């Protein structure tokens, strides 16, 4: 089954609409498909967050039009507590799995990894196509939860049993939760196929002269991420299978005995361990954070070098740091469980590796900022979003200092501080990476330049808006504002409502300005001015071919690589840079090791 002659069908350009655009084996089409799916998911997720924010500050007000979405979830447009939690669950699941994992990793990775290493396609095009369509099915299975029984599950994207394992635990826990578990299991399979492809392609299909150290930083990021993903999703899949079995087959992996839900004794389960799910889930869950953030970091480094017009202070150190982060991410999952009844000693065992992750992250940031010193910064939408990423990464990172320590986590755990932390570092930062990638590679992917003015306006509004939304979350957390509440009825939460109002206004504004981006994307796709092969004077191989690249990426002429990826800030015939595949002899900038 794993055989090169799976490419037999691949030996000629595909004919017919279906083969060309739908069930295409071409990694570029598949990359775009992932990107499109992510775009759809992020729009849905954003609307859900709007609804949640509106409900939080006006819990008893009718939200116009909502009653058409769900008559039981929002009778007369007034959102019920369970519907809030159901929307929250869907928001989290869509964003983490179908946006943060799909776009920076699967989307851009599929499109550019083979091109950047001079390959003509992924190693297993069939698996590649399968991985997308599997993910696609998973997506719609998840969305289907909106329309079954009493709606989507309400157990959050972490789906802790027994809440997520017992149908009687609440609305949405019957069919909706089962669909959720199935969808995630399917998603895992898709990601495993994708990771398999990425790793094999990177190892085997590099063109002549493309040593591992000559790969661009984003290629490295995708490679490391796929290694993380291969292990992480291989653990989430079993967890989902066990959960599904507990739900439909009556096994007791996670469900203990003697539970009483609304006066009914749950008789058919005994002895299960809810902590087992938490361990399995977070063993996946923490690496997942880096599956979301590392590709963004790689993309951003790739873009920053280009707009700095100079190599980073060190190419290798960045790679080693990303490796270190990926490696450490497997030793820290317990820091999500400081207060869930683990032994207090193991809490410390998880706390220190978590703190150690700060070091490679800091080095990354220092390299990004330090290389900016004395550079000639080219200001464009892409570079602005990349710099915005650095700022967000720092902000989200420092709040990690707090949560990494059990003694502080015991106060901040389960508050908006956590929500602010992971939205900053995992949500906004990764999304900035996507925006940067879109403005930078859009011309290559669609063959049209995007509008820079609109891009810069979009950046400024999004940047300010994101800070206005997520900075206050930390303050709320300091006061002990509990997360996942559908309304704030506690005496000490009432005075915080003004802050929540401010956040809601900011969220509505920030969400609205994304229309600028959508307009820019769609308008330039059709009406933008044609893009040259190398609009940004880039050096890596994706700029060595036309925009968009031909079906086999290099028109049959496999490029040969002569240089390190980022030869900027030099005197060469082409200007202040020389491309990886140009045989021109140049005096390279010395690079520290």
């Amino acid at each position: 089954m794993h055989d090169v002659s799976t490419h037999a069908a691949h030996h000629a350009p595909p004919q017919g609409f279906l083969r060309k655009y739908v069930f295409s084996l071409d990694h570029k089409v598949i990359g775009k498909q992932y990107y499109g799916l992510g775009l759809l998911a992020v729009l849905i997720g954003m609307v859900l967050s709007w609804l949640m924010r509106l409900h939080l500050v006006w819990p008893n007000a009718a939200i116009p039009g909502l009653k058409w979405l769900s008559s039981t979830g929002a009778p007369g447009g007034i959102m019920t507590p369970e519907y809030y939690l159901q929307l929250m669950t869907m928001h989290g699941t869509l964003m983490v799995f179908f946006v943060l994992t799909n776009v920076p990793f699967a989307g851009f990775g599929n499109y550019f990894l083979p091109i950047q290493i001079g390959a003509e396609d992924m190693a297993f095009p069939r698996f590649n196509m399968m991985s997308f369509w599997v993910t696609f099915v998973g997506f719609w299975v998840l969305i289907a939860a909106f329309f079954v029984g009493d709606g989507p599950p309400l157990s959050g994207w972490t789906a802790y049993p027994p809440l997520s394992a017992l149908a009687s635990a609440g609305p949405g826990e019957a069919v909706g939760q089962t669909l959720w578990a199935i969808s995630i299991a399917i998603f895992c399979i898709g990601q495993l196929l994708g990771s398999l492809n990425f790793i094999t392609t990177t190892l085997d299909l590099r063109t002549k002269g493309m040593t591992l150290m000559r790969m661009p930083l984003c290629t490295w990021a995708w490679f490391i991420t796929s290694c993380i993903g291969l292990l992480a999703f291989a653990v989430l899949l079993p967890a989902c299978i066990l959960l599904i079995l507990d739900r439909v087959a009556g096994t007791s992996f996670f469900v203990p005995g003697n539970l009483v839900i609304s006066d009914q004794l749950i008789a058919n389960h005994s002895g299960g361990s809810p902590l087992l799910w938490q361990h399995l889930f977070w063993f996946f869950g923490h690496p997942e954070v880096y599956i979301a953030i590392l590709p963004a970091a790689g993309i951003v480094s790739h873009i920053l070098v280009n707009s700095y017009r100079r190599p980073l202070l060190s190419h290798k150190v960045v790679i080693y740091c990303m490796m270190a982060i990926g490696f450490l991410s497997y030793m820290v999952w317990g820091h999500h469980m400081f207060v869930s009844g683990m032994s207090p000693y193991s809490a410390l065992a998880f706390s220190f590796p978590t703190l150690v992750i700060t070091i490679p992250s800091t080095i990354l940031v220092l390299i990004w900022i330090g290389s900016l010193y004395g550079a000639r910064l080219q200001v464009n939408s892409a570079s602005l979003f990349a710099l915005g990423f650095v700022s967000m990464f720092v902000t989200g990172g420092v709040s990690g200092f707090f949560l990494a320590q059990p003694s502080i986590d015991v106060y901040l755990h389960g508050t908006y501080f956590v929500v602010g932390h992971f939205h900053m570092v995992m949500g906004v930062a990764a999304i900035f990476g996507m925006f940067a990638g879109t403005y930078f590679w859009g011309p290559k992917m669609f063959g049209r330049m995007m509008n820079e003015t609109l891009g810069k306006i979009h950046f400024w509004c999004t940047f300010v808006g994101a800070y206005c939304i997520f900075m206050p979350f930390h303050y709320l957390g300091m006061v002990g504002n509990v997360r996942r509440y559908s309304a704030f009825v506690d005496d000490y939460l009432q005075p915080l409502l003004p802050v929540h109002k401010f956040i809601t206004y900011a969220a509505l504004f920030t969400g609205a300005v994304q229309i600028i981006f959508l307009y820019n994307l769609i308008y330039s796709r059709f009406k933008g001015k044609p893009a040259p092969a190398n609009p940004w004077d880039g050096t890596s191989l994706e700029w060595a071919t036309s925009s968009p690249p031909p079906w086999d990426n290099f028109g049959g002429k496999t490029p040969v690589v002569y240089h390190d990826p980022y030869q900027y800030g030099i005197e060469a015939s082409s200007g202040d840079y020389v491309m990886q595949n140009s045989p021109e002899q140049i005096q390279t900038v010395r690079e520290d090791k």
Partner: protein
Amino acid sequence: MATTLQPPSIKLPSARGVPRTKKLGPEVPSTGIWVGLAAITMTFAAFTSAMIVRHGSAPDWQHFSFPIILYFNTVVLIASSFTLHMARSRFAAIGNGAADSGPALRALYGTLVLGGLFVCGQYAAWLQLRTKGIYLATNPSSSFFYLFTVLHALHVIGGLLGLTYVISKLHRSVLAKRTLDATSQYWHFMGVLWLYLLGLLWIRI
């Protein structure tokens, strides 16, 4: 480091094929198989840790003696590995002049039959347990027993599909050695995995 104009000597993607076709590396299948096996290993490792945690967490664990036929199946699976090994050496012989692909084919068919026999044997084992009234949800021990055996059987069935694919290619005598190698790597791994699972279940159940 100053770059040299001589690209370091690393393997070229196979240069065969006319322009405007996609060329892919020769070592792709084996790398792919190894990566895939890594994922499978991780999955079963996760299940194993789940089993250990679950076993330790609650006193409701009931031991039961599992069907004797499992040992028979084990022998069958090991035998199939040997036949597949024979197939590989015979196929290599074809390369070295021996014209007839018959011996290799026979060995492959043998593997296929033994593999099928293994799956049927597993099925028989499940039937025996059911007659004993031991079902998936009877007890965590039985849950894990069915879980492990069924998942492994599914993987073996995947291997059988791979084998049929290989056989069909050999019939059309377009079989690449690396394909056979990759498939046999997978198949041997399934054997090793089964031995591991058998030991695990033997200890825990």
